């Protein structure tokens, strides 16, 4: 029993170390070098409004406003649908190119994701 307990604790320690190493590596999420990016939606703007990522990277929009928003690419590459206040939506960048996007609900809100 104490041995098992030690093993469990040890495994937990190893896992904690691995997670800490990931965290220390910044935004790196997966072994393939993919990065995680966050775009805040606040005060009816995308922040940052322009973002450059690599194929395979994950981009998450986080809605910090009191009203729903979308991230909708003009060329239809992605469309979040409605993101509720406090909610988020993640897009895995697949196709290279520059994607201009808007909030389909609020035409004054514009952004751009460049995928290289």
């Amino acid at each position, binding site marked *: 029993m104490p041995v098992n307990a030690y093993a469990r604790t040890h495994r937990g320690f190893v896992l904690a170390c691995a997670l800490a190493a990931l965290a220390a590596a910044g935004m790196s999420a997966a072994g393939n070098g993919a990065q995680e990016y966050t775009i805040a939606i606040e*005060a009816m703007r995308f922040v940052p409004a322009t973002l450059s990522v690599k194929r395979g990277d994950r981009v998450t929009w986080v809605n910090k406003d009191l*009203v*729903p928003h979308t991230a909708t690419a003009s060329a239809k590459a992605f469309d979040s649908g409605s993101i509720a206040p406090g909610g988020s939506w993640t897009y895995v960048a697949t196709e290279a190119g520059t994607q201009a996007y808007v909030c389909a609900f*609020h035409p004054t809100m514009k952004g751009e994701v460049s995928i290289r």
Partner: protein
Amino acid sequence: MNFKHTARILVLSAAVAAFAAQAQGPTDPQIAAIVVTANQVDIDAGKLAKSKAHAKEVAAFAERMVVDHEGVNQSARELVSRLQVTPEPNATSESLQQGGDENLAKLEKLSGQAFDRAYVEHEVAYHQAVLDAVDKTLIPSAQNAELKALLVKVRPAFVAHLEHARQLQASLEQVGGLEHGE
């Protein structure tokens, strides 16, 4: 028509400005009533416009006004409940309600493109008037930091709505001579 409409908005602005002219602005309970009423008036107009709008862009805008202002009002209600502030009706909130009722009565009688133009024209003037009140009276007068922060937080939505309404107004004027408003 335009003159009467503008006059009504001016009455609203005057009611808000009356606070500014006094030594002190509205109290927090009065501000709470103004915020909730201002949102509710636009929700009511949006609900009518969703069903009566001619152009689909106008219907989509109306739907957005209902959703967004309900979202703002939910946050406002949660905050005043948490702060144990009881909204206190006052000359400004009553003027907003009266102006909203008159707007609904006017819109009820209209249809087609005339409805769209009247609704959108009022939305432009209304958001401008509410923004003026937020900037000149409500934010400067708010005492509670959280109430002030809520006003600051919702302000950009009113700006975006105003710009959206102006864009709609411009596109409605462009198709004014055509038979279909799209």
